[in-house]
């Protein structure tokens, strides 16, 4: 039965892979033949209007998604969250930096609160559907460069213009490159934020990602994040931490998240010898698939930032110029604009219970700097909760500015070429004042730096099964799960009293027989001597 089931699972898997990879080739429209796409286009909005002349509902669909709103409501607390207002430990916050950060918004022109979220022409179709040569340049609020543009002004560095007609004629499905253009580079650089998402996934070997391997299954992001009406499932902000169901069958009506491992593999995917007595499948009642199948993250040669200390920022070289220090591998460890970094590669995750929902600190949350590192986010969930599993996470450690009077974390303005942003002036009070004006927060003028933590779920870079985390990685006294509550891990958790008393009894018995035999020997030879 199990064999049959697993055979069916594989057939479905293979079927859906063929179906998905067949789609691109089987498209019935060649966009290069569309008259409306021949241009000329002056701006991105012109292209969008051309797209919408056929894809009439596309912009409305996009506008309903977080890709557009950068906003969502925490269903448990009712708090308004989302990129728009949220804080992090990396570049800290979007507000007051919109023109820079929002080059990753799928819209054109969001540079301040006046952005019109209802204007369909502002939706950037090309951000996700280009097939190359399209760059939303940093600092241009989501626009590509339409002409040769010096940025920052006076820097002598230029953005080359994008050929909108060519890009429009060559549109296609989303790709690793289009998703990755933003999702690989969160936090201001390749691999900085996630740890399991970086540009190495554009052309990964099987060892790095068994699904995306270009020499293997060659999945695109959308093969798992199966998108319907522009709604991309599978977000770190609201995850499906446990999915205790079989695989989704083609045609099956379901509200389930199609991006989970179980959506394809089912929740009992291991074929086990009778010596294992279904033990691996039983592990799925406690562990996320990712806990064993992603042995470490940042495995593709791109380091991820494990630590970022803003308090070190602003040190200039002997000539009064900002500097960049790199380690022997060429990875940046210090940048005057940003501070010092701890880079990590092949990082073994931290493990913790996670029910899929995340608790975020708010810009107005009162913190207690004396009580240890401030947790910018927390994963909810605990042992025994049917929705929770033990997940691998990246534990990031930051140090960032806070208001010592109001006891709130502060958002600095960093990235805009003006006379307040930190990267251009190295003046914290100005940068924090400008940031506070952006967020609408009170700023007393008094600030210091506080240690913070942030956690990121690890779910990409799934290794081939033969490289899964070995049993003894956890089932040992100093195993990976030390400190995770609510579980008994054989090999790690033997009762200390039984250990001690048992060893005492065993060595007591050994000592007893040794003494006994010693007396026998002595008495024996004495008897002979007589």
């Amino acid at each position: 039965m199990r064999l049959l089931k697993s055979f069916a699972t594989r057939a479905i898997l293979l079927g859906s892979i063929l179906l998905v990879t067949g789609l691109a080739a089987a498209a019935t429209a060649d966009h290069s033949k569309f008259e409306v796409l021949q241009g000329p286009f002056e701006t991105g909005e012109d292209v969008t209007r051309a797209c919408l002349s056929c894809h009439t509902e596309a912009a409305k669909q996009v506008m309903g998604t977080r890709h557009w709103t950068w906003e969502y409501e925490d269903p448990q607390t009712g708090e308004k969250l989302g990129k728009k207002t949220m804080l992090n430990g990396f570049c800290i916050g979007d507000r007051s930096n919109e023109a820079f950060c929002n080059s990753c918004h799928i819209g054109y022109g969001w540079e301040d609160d006046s952005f019109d979220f209802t204007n369909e022409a502002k939706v950037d179709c090309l951000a996700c559907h280009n097939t190359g040569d399209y760059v939303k340049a940093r600092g241009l609020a989501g626009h590509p460069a339409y002409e040769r543009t010096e940025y920052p002004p006076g820097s002598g560095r230029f953005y080359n213009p994008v050929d909108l007609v060519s890009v429009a004629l060559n549109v296609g499905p989303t790709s690793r490159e289009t998703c990755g253009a933003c999702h690989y580079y969160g936090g201001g650089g390749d691999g900085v934020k996630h740890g399991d998402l970086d540009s190495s996934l554009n052309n990964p070997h099987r060892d790095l990602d068994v699904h995306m391997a270009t020499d293997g299954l060659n999945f695109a992001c959308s093969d798992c994040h199966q998108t319907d009406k522009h709604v991309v499932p599978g977000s770190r902000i609201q995850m499906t931490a446990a999915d205790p169901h079989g695989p989704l069958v083609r045609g099956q009506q379901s509200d389930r998240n199609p991006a989970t491992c179980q959506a394809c593999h089912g929740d009992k995917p291991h074929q086990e010898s009778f010596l294992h007595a279904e033990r691996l499948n039983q592990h799925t009642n406690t562990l996320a698939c990712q806990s064993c199948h992603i042995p470490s993250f940042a495995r593709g040669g791109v380091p991820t930032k494990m630590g970022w200390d803003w308090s070190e920022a602003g040190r200039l070289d002997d000539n009064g110029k900002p500097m960049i220090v790199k380690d022997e591998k060429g990875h940046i460890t210090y940048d005057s604009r940003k501070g010092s970094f701890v880079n990590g590669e092949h990082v073994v995750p931290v493990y913790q219970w996670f029910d899929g929902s995340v608790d975020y600190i708010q810009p107005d949350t009162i913190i207690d700097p004396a009580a240890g590192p401030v947790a910018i986010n927390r994963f909810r969930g605990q042992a025994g909760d049917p929705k929770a599993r033990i997940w691998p996470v990246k534990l990031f450690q930051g140090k960032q500015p806070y208001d010592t009077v109001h006891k709130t974390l502060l958002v600095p303005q960093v990235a805009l070429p003006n006379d307040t942003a930190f990267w251009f002036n190295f003046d914290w009070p100005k940068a924090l004042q400008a940031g506070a004006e952006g967020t609408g927060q009170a700023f007393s003028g008094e600030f210091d730096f506080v240690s913070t933590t942030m956690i990121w779920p690890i779910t990409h870079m799934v290794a081939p099964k033969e490289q899964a985390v070995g049993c003894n990685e956890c089932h040992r006294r100093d195993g990976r799960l030390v400190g995770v509550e609510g579980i008994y891990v054989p090999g790690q958790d033997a009762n200390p009293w039984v250990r001690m008393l048992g060893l005492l009894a065993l060595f007591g018995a050994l000592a007893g027989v040794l003494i006994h035999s010693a007396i026998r020997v002595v008495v024996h030879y004495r008897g002979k001597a007589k």
Partner: protein
Amino acid sequence: MSGHTVEKIYVFKRYERFWHWSQAAMIIFMMITGFEVAGFYENFGFQRAVELHTLTAWALITLWAFTIFWQFTTGEWRQYIPTLKRIDAIARYYAWDIFKGLPHPYKKTVLQKHNPLQRLAYLALLAMVSPIIWVSGLFYLFYAYWPEWGIDQWLRLEWVATAHLVGAFMMAVFFVVHVYLTTTGHSVFAHIKSMITGWEELHDDHAKPVSRSKS
């Protein structure tokens, strides 16, 4: 301590010896793998250790199935009926008389090859250590099926693993003492030899009638 060999008796039959030695090997192996599973050291690696431990458990269960059958068809099970008769003399022997070179107060016969102290030890093994190990071990082995059978509602893995470890230590202590006591025969290897060949040499040590009263 070696008197004249007056008599040779065939105490341990061929199946019994096969049972004893294969069981001994398996129990030793299960202790080696089991204490690794419990996290005392690393040798095979956890996964291998569990697999080998499980495989050996099934082999031992099979051996026991045959052995129980053998015990009852041959009537040998009676050898394990406990008695307290003259247990004091035997205890005194191991605690004192043995050092003085006095003979063992119990005389082994084909019908009664275990002395009362042995019988008590085996009773403890059969009635306490074995059930602790086997019951906890089988629950441990089939942990994956607990939710299906509703067992997870009232039983915790931690209790099962702890009980199993307690049993394992009892077995280990038994093992140490048992092996040591094999050296207390007429010569250091006399008992082991008879467990291998099946033949026990009865010696005429001091010919005290007291010690022969049972034959």
